[in-house]
């Protein structure tokens, strides 16, 4: 079946497009993008109301789907349902499952579950080290063959400089980036929040920004040494951004991501509105406003490559404990687009085209996967955004199994109208005004 998305504002930075175009989809592929495309007989026309934005499918390169092993938090089915509801046509899932995704068996299991769910595309990320224990490299070639697109020991840093060196060298053979959770464990110590005034008032152990930047500097140096690709995950500290900029000026193959929560929230959330709210406990922690401002500047000036959610679902019981005992992390898939549109685009920090770069073009490029483009021949992964939609975040309506977000009840401007994966409409927002089905005869 052919579908023509007609008359929407197409924002497709990979192809330099930002204007009113039609997008013709045939089956699971985009076949043509142009102005006023002719309507052939077998084409179903979907009028895109003015105000909506057609863009390449968004890719979240940092999520935790928890399956296998922690299905009480999230499953691949619920996680990908959350993804498409959040406008993401693809997600890359971290290997810290039980068992760890350090072998082809687990990778294949994840892909099988993703195929069954048949919603967002799932790109598994394999472990750098066997069991993520920082001792021995995982079987990286085997992981690549099974379908992993990148490597990471996320949840913890690659344990030693030597192991990181080997990982960068070895993964480089397979064109896989190493995604690094930058954190010096000794500096983190027992930290649970950003080291600063607010953590001090609450008597919480702090984690200085340098715990992150020191590790980033190590990894950037090693990327320079090896020529490998390192991607700094969930960057939070201004010192880390400086480190990344330093690496880029030296021509090191380093990229970086920030999460929506690190660019929207600061460590003041530890105190207000709810003191010790475990839904603001994440790692890296929410930083000071100076750090947040640095991240905003990095988004604007191009130093930051990607926005990824670090979607970290946890069960209610796990978060309903003392702050020290609660697990790190919040969900992100279903709030990212609204937060970014409201706090970044409407706030004038970045343009819509830049947002699409951050959420689609660059993740595709870094992971080396299809997508990020609406070119003819590309997979028909399309997200239709409603930038002016009034959205009230509601955990009750979320598709994720988990409800651990500090954004419940937030009123934001901008949301998702529809998500199309491989030509199939997998999500349609309430009141999107899109008519994907022909009127009943």
């Amino acid at each position, binding site marked *: 079946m052919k579908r023509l998305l007609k008359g929407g504002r197409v924002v497709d930075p990979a192809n330099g497009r930002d204007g009113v175009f039609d997008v013709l989809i045939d089956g699971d592929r985009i076949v043509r993008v142009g102005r006023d495309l002719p309507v052939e007989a077998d084409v179903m026309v979907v009028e895109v109301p003015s105000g909506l934005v057609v863009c390449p499918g968004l890719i979240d390169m940092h999520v935790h789907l928890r399956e296998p092993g922690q299905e009480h938090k999230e499953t691949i089915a619920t996680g990908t349902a959350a993804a498409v509801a959040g406008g993401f046509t693809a997600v890359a899932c971290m290997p810290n499952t039980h068992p760890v995704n350090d072998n082809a068996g687990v990778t294949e299991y994840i892909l099988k579950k993703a195929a069954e769910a048949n919603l967002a595309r799932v790109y598994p990320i394999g472990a750098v080290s066997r069991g993520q224990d920082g001792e021995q490299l995982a079987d990286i070639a085997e992981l690549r063959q099974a379908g992993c697109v990148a490597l990471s020991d996320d949840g913890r840093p690659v344990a030693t400089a030597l192991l990181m060196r080997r990982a960068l060298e070895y993964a480089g053979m397979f064109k896989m980036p190493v995604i690094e959770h930058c954190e010096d464990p000794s500096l983190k*110590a027992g930290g649970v929040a950003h*080291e*600063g*005034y*607010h*953590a*001090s*008032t*609450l*008597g*919480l*152990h*702090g984690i*200085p920004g340098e715990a992150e930047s020191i590790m980033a500097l190590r990894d950037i140096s090693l990327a320079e040494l090896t020529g490998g690709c390192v991607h700094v995950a969930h960057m939070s500290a201004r010192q880390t951004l400086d480190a990344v900029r330093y690496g880029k000026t030296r021509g090191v193959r380093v990229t970086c991501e920030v999460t929506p929560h690190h660019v929207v929230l600061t460590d003041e959330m530890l105190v207000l509105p*709810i*003191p*010790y709210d475990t839904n603001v406990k994440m790692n890296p922690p929410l930083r000071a406003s100076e750090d947040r401002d640095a991240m905003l500047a990095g988004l604007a000036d191009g130093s930051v490559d990607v926005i990824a959610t670090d979607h970290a679902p946890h069960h209610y*019981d796990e978060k*309903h*404990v*003392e*702050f*020290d*005992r609660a697990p790190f992390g919040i969900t992100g898939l279903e709030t990212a687009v609204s937060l970014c549109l409201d706090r970044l685009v409407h706030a004038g920090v970045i343009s819509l085209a830049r947002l699409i770069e951050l959420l689609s073009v660059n993740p595709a490029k870094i992971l080396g996967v299809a997508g990020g483009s609406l070119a003819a021949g590309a997979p028909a992964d399309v997200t239709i955004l409603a930038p002016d939609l009034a959205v009230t975040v509601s955990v009750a309506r979320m598709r994720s199994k988990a409800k651990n977000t500090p954004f419940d009840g937030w009123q934001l401007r901008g949301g998702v109208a529809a998500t199309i994966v491989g030509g199939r409409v997998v999500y349609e927002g309430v009141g999107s005004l899109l008519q994907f089905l022909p009127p009943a005869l």
Partner: protein
Amino acid sequence: MKKDLLGIAELSSEEIYLILDTAEAMREIGQRPIKKVPTLRGKTVVNLFFEPSTRTRTSFEIAEKRLSADTLSIAVAASSVLKGETLVDTAMNIEAMSPDMIVVRHAASGACHLLSRICRSRIINAGDGMHEHPTQALLDAFTIREHKKRIDGLKVAIVGDLLHSRVLRSNVLLLTKLGAEVWVSGPRTLVPAGMERFGVRVSTSVEEAVADADVIMMLRIQQERMQGAFIPSLREYFTVFGMTAERVARAKPDAIIMHPGPMNRGVEIASEVADGPYSVILEQVANGVAVRMAVLYLLAGGPEGE
């Protein structure tokens, strides 16, 4: 008063003075032949202690009994926690038996805030992690006021492990609210981040901190901090920060020396200072009962603005 006493942070200076004034009246009860009033008759107070504590728990128990509350103390150190019961479940089970107040001591900062959100009973913080220990700060203020007749304008030097001390946080909040000039001093490794923003002067020179002080308040150095490499040795700590008679001599001639206990003699404080004429350490303990009676009495009233 609000429903709970979670910390000094939530108290206004008027409320602090109300507690101190009420404690003045309560102290007299402890001097009677029959040290008991019927005020909290029929009220049930549970002392829920997840951390070992002798002084604070005993003080609360005596305060409760002097007000005729029905009281029981639960040391949860091992039992429930080892069986995997969460703090919330433990609290909800106690809550199901309809106590009126729960006095909580817990190793995690913010534990009382968590319980405050889920319990109908009034929560009194008897020390939560490194966060606050409000009744300690109140009894300290009571003791200071007794000796100095005021708090406003006094120079108070607090010396010791600032980083891990809930007593420090509560005292800094209280003393700055009431207008004291607060100096804090300790090894740089044990100064919390952003300490200046608490409205205090920070100095790593104990001599500077205690110079012309009206009050010197010592904080306990915990032996286990040695493992975190915060200080090289207890002996060296005493050399650099220990409160000796020579250091006390730099303070005002009528300065008082305080310590929340338990003391490490020869580590943070020399015995001659602890037992010296300027030491009010045992008065602090005595005043603790009156201050806790005041808190129990004032919290037992109707909630305000709810």
